């Protein structure tokens, strides 16, 4: 796949369709992959990668990139296309400056999980038939994909691209029974005291590094309210438990109805806080209260918080969970 993508990127650069390519490049370690913009075939040859460590959602980078001179090629995994559509619906990216190539994704590996299995010296990874073959300096090791896959990929909602200019590889399907709300349901089933304890345990670890916000494709504000001294809620670091809660509640609320559930927030959290569980709660509530809604699936759809129904349930209705 990597070769195919590289070849196509070079063609598009060569024929002038695009002048830049947004993709992934290997970092210090082969599993430490970062988004990167390539301007020449040479740069692509040197650094472009696409493998099962390429987790980053590239759509957010288009907010800045699509406003630059010329057209940019972007490779989007299925879940990234939802973010892309959402950004499009919110006029955050300029479609005419973007050439989208959809690439398949069968679930990205979580390097932490591999490390926890004692796998060291990782140099590469290949997935085939539900098995990761992890290349290491000590030779190849095989791992069942389900054991090493990132949490978010285990409950992947869709392997189907919702937007693209061209597609490389196979197209997947939307998975209606992805069980992505299982953990939310488990939390809902707890007593309020247990839930409170759970979230205190999680959120108290927050170091306010803002990684979740910076990676989130729904958090593209020119200036975040938490950085704006005039907003009345600006804060650089969470001083008290209240501020820890405040940041995450407001962030989740601001992306409610807009979050596509790409899971980047939890992926990048250095403290491993399951932030996606906050967003998924809103998604689940929206589905239950106002009918199924998948942000980004249809850029023309009315956002649930931008519309209403006269027969909507009352706030607080429906009893306790």
């Amino acid at each position, binding site marked *: 796949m990597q070769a195919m993508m590289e070849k196509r990127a070079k063609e598009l650069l060569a024929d002038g369709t695009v002048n830049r390519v947004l993709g992934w490049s290997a970092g210090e370690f082969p599993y430490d992959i970062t988004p990167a913009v390539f301007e020449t075939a040479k740069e692509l040859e040197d650094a472009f990668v696409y493998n099962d460590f390429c987790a980053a959602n590239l759509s957010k980078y288009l907010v800045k990139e699509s*406003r630059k001179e010329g057209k940019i090629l972007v490779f989007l995994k299925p879940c990234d296309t939802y973010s892309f559509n959402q950004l499009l619906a*919110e*006029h*955050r990216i300029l479609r005419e400056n973007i050439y989208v190539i959809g690439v398949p994704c069968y679930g990205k590996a979580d390097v932490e999980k591999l490390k926890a299995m004692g796998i060291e010296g990782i140099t590469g990874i290949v997935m085939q038939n539900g098995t990761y073959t992890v290349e290491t300096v000590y030779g190849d090791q095989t791992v069942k994909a389900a054991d090493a896959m990132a949490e978010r990929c285990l409950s992947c909602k869709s392997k189907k691209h919702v937007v693209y200019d061209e597609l490389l590889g196979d197209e997947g399907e939307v998975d209606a029974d992805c069980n992505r709300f299982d953990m939310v349901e488990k939390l809902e089933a707890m007593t309020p005291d247990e839930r409170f304890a759970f979230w205190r345990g999680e959120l108290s670890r927050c170091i306010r590094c803002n990684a979740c916000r910076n990676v989130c494709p729904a958090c*593209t*504000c*020119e*200036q*975040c*309210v938490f950085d*704006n001294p*005039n*907003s*009345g809620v600006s804060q650089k670091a969470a001083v008290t438990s209240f501020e820890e809660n405040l940041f995450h509640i407001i962030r989740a609320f*601001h*992306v409610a109805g*807009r979050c596509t559930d790409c899971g980047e927030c939890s992926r990048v959290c250095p403290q491993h806080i399951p932030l996606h569980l906050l967003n998924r709660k809103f998604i689940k509530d929206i589905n239950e209260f106002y009918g199924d809604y998948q942000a980004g699936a249809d850029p023309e759809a*009315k*956002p649930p*918080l*931008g*519309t209403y129904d006269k027969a909507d349930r009352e706030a607080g209705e429906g009893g306790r969970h």
Partner: protein
Amino acid sequence: MQRIGVFVCHCGTNIAGTVDVVAVAKALGQEPGVVFSTEYQYMCSESGQQLMRAAIREHKLTGVVVCSCSPRMHEATFRKAAALEGVNPYMVEIANIREHVSWIHKDMAEATEKAVILGRAAIAKVHLNAPLQAGESPVTKRALVIGGGIAGIQTALDIAEAGFEVDIVEKSPTIGGKMAQLDKTFPTLDCAACILTPKMVDAAQNEKINIFAYSELESVKGYIGNFKAQIRRKARFVDETKCTGCGICTEKCPQKKVPNEFNMGLDNRRAIYIPFAQAVPKVATIDANYCTMMKTGKCGICSKVCGTGAIDYTQKDTVIEREYGAIVVATGFNPIDAKVYNEYGYMDSPDVVTSLELERLMNAAGPTNGTLLRPSDKTHPHTIVFVQCVGSRCDETDERGKPYCSKICCMYTAKHAMLIREKYPDTDVYVFYIDVRTPGKNFDEFYRRAVEQYGVHYIKGQVGKVVEQNGKLHVQASDLLANEQLHIDADLVVLATAIEPDKTARSLGTMLTASMDTNDFFTEAHPKLRPVESPTAGIFLSGVCQGPKDIPETVSQASACAAKVIGVLAKDKLTCNPCVAHSDELLCNGCSSCEKVCPYGAISYSDKEFRGPNRTTLIRRVASVNPAVCQGCGACTVACPSGAMDLKGFSNKQIMAEVDAICK
């Protein structure tokens, strides 16, 4: 830093009786930025305002906090006073320590403490207030009157008299409303038609008045000065411009079995009809539910006999759009359905009638040509029982009834009783009442005449049941003063059914966002001081839609309403509410979240150039608010994730400062 003055009002003892006003003034005087603090007996009085103005001058105040009654009461008064001294009116904040403190709390310490806290919140807000300049919006110099009864007609005539154009939208084929159905009017006994129909004709002939009869309001958008309404003109299947109202069609139409709603279903009309002789506009209407031609495609007699070719079976509803500066609601009332009162046998005997049906039975243009005859056998009734308060004055345990007094029944029943005794002296008339209410000019005199001069039997007590027996109506009732149960064999029983707002009122209220009470009467902006205005600017109330009224009251309210409308239409520009949303372009993402929740379409987007890093320019899509269209609800401010959208006068920071002050 603001220089704030605090003025604590005693409101006589209304506030000072429960709140230690001196302590409040003293405590608030300690707040940062407060350079002057005092209390006074009546801040709203001329001398109170002078005191405030002097303090503004003397202490060079930049902000004012008045601790007094509700801002809904005197905010405007104090703002005006401050403006006279050069302080921007929006630098004045009110702490409501009367309605929200002294009137609901009894304990002085508690009330004083709360008053201080509310004062602090107002001070905290003023610190963040900014002078606001009100914008202006143009006024469409035309009024819409919804409902063509006496209320609507009078309002329209008065507005037209002042030189402004008025449209009357009436859902039935003619204007005239309930008054057109009445026989005589109390307490003068002049004939309703004789005094109403000239007004109907005036309305029709007035070039400033457009009558859209047989039409319904489809939608209303906009705000005071700038409403846009869609009016559905229902198909009459008769060309209004051609029909001369000669009535030949209504005589020749073979479909004779259509219940005549104008006569309360007591007789029949044709499928093509003119509701009554003096109808305005006097144009025939085809009732498509009954017309043989419309139902089967065979007949067409009316079309053949029509001399002007006015009949058009293919006519369709049309929707017209008109612009208005003000809207008058004059949707009136209906008697409640007497069907639900089976103890009075309304459904069992045709001789149990409602008062409005009796009006038709006594009217010279009614089904009996004015001779009072029983509907069942067309004989003259000799014993007539009137039952008062049918469905009025019921509490919530009685779901058939209304909690209010319908107001007009006592008087019209006295009128009915008197007219019957006058015309048919051999008739025994009984009136069963709970109370007889006659507050009105010459009203009690009128009622006493019925009792004393005409010998109507007024009996304190209610009717328990009415049963048809051998052609008579057996009435079982109580005479509470004599402590007797009475049994009367009556020929006719007349029910004074409660009146309720027209069924269309509820949906209309929603369309106009004009508030209503639980009985579907429109709420006035103030029960005493602004009785003809709805709380929604530009919406005015005329007649029974606001509450039960008799004709003289309705007419005076209708004229009062017209005066208010004229007050709007006479202005070339209206001052807009300056408390509108505005977008900080530097923060705006251009995401359209705000645009989606704006009910007025006040937000638009444009691409603007911004300075980027390293002397580059960035083009970004940003929102801007049209301040003339924005009404200041603030929906957009919460929809905006970046905090770019804020509301002037109720900014995020101001509200949070109030929260902080209250929670301190």
